[in-house]
């Protein structure tokens, strides 16, 4: 594999991801409207119900809207990762996956390029949301927006790799609804995206333990701390290890000799 070929292939995959994302107006609109609905309606209602103590990285009492924004940014990445997974399954059923997999490049590179391209595609939308959140008085320091970039990239890659690994497991498009119910919603609700861990501990230690072990929680915390210019090392570790594990699973799943793809009957 020459570096030039690898770079050209990445630019081609990136361009296709952009064209498809922008071309799918509904998905593009949903990506920005979904978190705004949560922020504007759900958070407004919860504001009076849920009292928050001072917890790092915050140095004062905060509004619920301030707490929930990193979680909603994480949700955008989670949904985008799952949408990408869905489009991988769709591409496989529609045949266009074959074009990608018969390119003369290693599969790990092709899958990695697609994962990175997909993550980069959603970043402008996440930043658009973070800027709109300023209207709800969620105003992290200016350098927090820059510091959040690597956190968003790592979280996006990790959640995208999770979707990629899932896509190698799902045999048919119809099964995706089940994945939404049994994977995405538990991952989102049993996390620190909507409530801090201490609140969950008060209600259910089991749920709190699940949220603590949930990689999505660590994606959210990584983003939360980064938005206020701080690094949460344990979340960084969990996200990095999860990325490696999920991506390895995806590469295994798409391996022509070993993975699920190899055992799959021809469509």
């Amino acid at each position: 594999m020459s570096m030039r070929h690898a770079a050209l292939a990445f630019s081609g995959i990136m361009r296709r991801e952009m064209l498809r994302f922008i071309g799918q107006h509904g998905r593009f609109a949903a990506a920005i409207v979904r978190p705004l609905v949560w922020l504007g309606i759900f958070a407004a209602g919860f504001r009076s119900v849920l009292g928050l103590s001072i917890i790092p990285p915050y140095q004062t009492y905060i509004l619920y809207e301030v707490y929930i924004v990193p979680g909603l940014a994480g949700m955008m990445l989670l949904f985008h990762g799952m949408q990408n997974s869905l489009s991988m399954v769709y591409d496989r059923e529609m045949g266009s996956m074959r074009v990608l997999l018969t390119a003369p490049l290693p599969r790990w590179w092709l899958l990695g390029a697609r994962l990175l391209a997909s993550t980069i595609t959603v970043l402008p939308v996440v930043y658009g949301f973070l800027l709109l959140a300023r209207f709800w008085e969620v105003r992290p320091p200016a350098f927090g927006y820059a510091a959040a970039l690597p956190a968003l990239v790592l979280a996006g890659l990790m959640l995208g790799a999770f979707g990629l690994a899932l896509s190698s497991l799902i045999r048919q498009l119809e099964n995706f609804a089940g994945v939404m119910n049994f994977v995405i919603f538990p991952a989102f609700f049993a996390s620190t995206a909507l409530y801090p861990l201490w609140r969950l501990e008060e209600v259910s230690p089991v749920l709190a333990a699940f949220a603590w072990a949930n990689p999505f929680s660590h994606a959210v915390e990584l983003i939360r701390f980064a938005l206020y210019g701080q690094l949460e090392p344990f979340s960084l570790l969990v996200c990095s290890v999860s990325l490696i594990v999920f991506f390895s699973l995806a590469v295994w799943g798409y391996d022509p000799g070993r993975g699920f793809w190899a055992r799959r009957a021809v469509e």
Partner: protein
Amino acid sequence: MTALVIENLSHGFGRRKALSDVSLTIDPGAFMVLLGPNGAGKTTLVSLATGLYNAQQGDIRIFGHSISRDPLPALADLGVVFQMPTLDLDLTVMDNLAYHAALRGLSRAKGLERASVELERLGIAERAHDKVRALSGGLRRRVEIARALLHDPRLLIVDEATAGLDVAGRHMLLTHVRSLCGEGISVLWATHMLDEIEPADRLAVLHRGSLRWTGAASELASPENLEAAFLQLMGEAA
């Protein structure tokens, strides 16, 4: 060097054997028809030859490179048109071709240049900026042929590309692909249509995963007796 060598190829899905001990070769510039009824194993053979997954037994070499052990140079020499349409319907023809060109390591300028040349040769240059969704089935197939040729492959595998096309569309596609052999490209043409075979073609008859006959089509039967000979081969297998 032989364009394609398939040696003792066997593959199954669960307990179902899709291919069993298949061997064949294609010389440079040759047109080989892989003939078989639906479910004969043609698409499995194409999937294995294009490295989508590895065969459980046997080997496939493209210009000397094993598709399982040395896949990258093998794939670099290969162009494929799959039975299942593989174009992005919501992208333009040119965007589809540019994507493929990038995957094949062509610069954007070179990719667009090659795409223009191939679209022109197939008579669809004026549709280059249309969304694929707006194209008829026949035109989409032509785009897929153009795409498979962008990187100047030495071996072209075409899997049932004429299925569902009208007579004129089939004729156009087949004539174009046959003309590629004159440029030194080897072609493996998988089909179940007997009228796509010419006497001078190399022919491999596949049925229930096994090769029933290989050789020049004219050695099997004259064109008017080809159907009877084919049915006899199927009958012997039954």
